[in-house]
Structures are given as structure tokens and as C-alpha cells.
């Protein structure tokens, strides 16, 4: 069991480390790094399912008989590029949040929103004023 499944378990461990960072860390940029860790875990899991013992890359050539499966590779290949594009969207959001609130810590952002609610300000206006002052 261990000899045949340890690879999958390591991939799961990577996913879980990423998941922990995403949920527990408050820094938005750290969360995005955690998200990429999680992503890589999933990518490796897909590719691992397509791997075959003694197989070779699925580029047909003479003298090679056993190939790994090309389909997971196609799916992950496109997923990586889509992944970096969505990472860029997340980073852009983080930049905007920093400009509005002056911080990228989730707790501080929430706290400031709460304070704005308590003083009766419209959240958006207050945020705009704050960033203007800082």
C-alpha cells in the first residue's frame, strides 16, 4: 500500500499545506502563494494518474513501446496557463485593496470596514478618504 500510494499521499500533503495557508493566513499575498501550492498539488495528482511504470513521454518514436497517457497532460498544460492568468487577477485585486485600505492583511481590512459601519460612514467613501490621507 505504502509503496504504491506514497506518491499520491505526497501530492495530497502539498494540497493540504496550500489549503492551510489559504484558510489560516491573513495576508492576501500569502494566501495567493498558498493557492499556487494547492494548484501544484492538483496538477501533480493529475499527471501522476497518467504516469505508467517504465513509460515514456507520449511523443511517438521508434523503439519506444510504453507511453504515459497524454490526456491529463493536455488538461494540466492549459490549466497552468489559466492558473497564472487567474493569479494575476488575484494580485490585481490585492493591489487595489492595498490602495483602498493601506494594508493587505485580511483582519485589518475587516476591522476597518467594521469601524466604518459603526461610525455610520458609507464604507466606500471612508475607504477613499483614508487612502487619500495615508
Amino acid at each position, binding site marked *: 500500500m505504502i509503496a504504491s500510494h506514497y506518491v499520491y499521499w505526497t501530492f495530497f500533503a502539498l494540497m493540504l499545506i496550500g489549503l492551510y495557508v489559504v484558510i489560516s493566513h491573513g495576508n492576501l499575498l500569502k494566501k495567493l502563494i498558498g493557492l499556487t501550492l494547492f494548484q501544484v498539488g492538483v496538477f501533480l495528482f493529475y499527471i501522476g494518474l497518467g504516469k505508467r511504470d517504465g513509460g*515514456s*513521454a507520449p511523443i511517438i518514436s521508434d523503439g519506444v513501446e510504453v507511453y504515459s497517457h497524454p490526456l491529463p497532460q493536455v488538461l494540466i498544460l492549459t490549466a497552468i496557463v489559466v492558473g497564472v492568468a487567474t493569479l494575476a487577477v488575484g494580485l490585481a485585486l490585492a493591489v487595489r485593496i492595498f490602495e483602498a485600505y493601506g494594508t493587505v492583511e485580511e483582519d485589518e481590512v475587516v476591522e476597518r470596514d467594521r469601524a466604518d459601519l459603526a461610525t455610520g460612514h458609507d464604507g466606500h467613501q471612508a475607504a477613499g478618504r483614508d487612502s487619500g490621507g495615508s
Partner: protein
Amino acid sequence: MIFAVMVALLVTMVLALVRAFMGPGLYNRILAINTFGTKTVLFVAVAGFLFGRPEFLDIGILYALVNFVATVAVLRLTHLQDPWSGTEGGEAG
């Protein structure tokens, strides 16, 4: 023989990795990561020979290029207050 080289590569990778973890500070880590990058280029080359399909060395070329891009980016972006323009300076960030 090639397998022995592979083992030496893996040992060196682990050594560089320990340096990257220990630091201290930014520069030791950049140095360790840069060295590690060279090892990955060699890894790809040696793995091609080890598993009998050496025609896929294109990946090694890409790693050599990308490794350089990463080092330049780290130095550039950790060093300037206004990171993108390169015209106005500031102290190290």
C-alpha cells in the same frame, strides 16, 4: 556512471536547498536558488540520458533562460523603490 552523476546532483540540490532554507537574509537565499536552478538544468539533461530519451533537451535550454530571468527580476524588484521605471532611485526596499 550517469546514475552516479544523478545522485551527485540530487545531493547538491539538497545542500543548496538547506542553504536556501537557512538563509540568513535575502542574498544567501537568492544565491542558493540560483545555484539550484543550474542544478535543475543539469537534472533535465542527465535525466534524458538516464531514461534513454536524450532528444528532449529543449527543456534544459528553457530552464537556463528562465533561471536568469528570475535572478534579474529578484535583484531588480527588491532593489528599487520605484521598481519598474529604473529611472529614480531609492534605498534598498
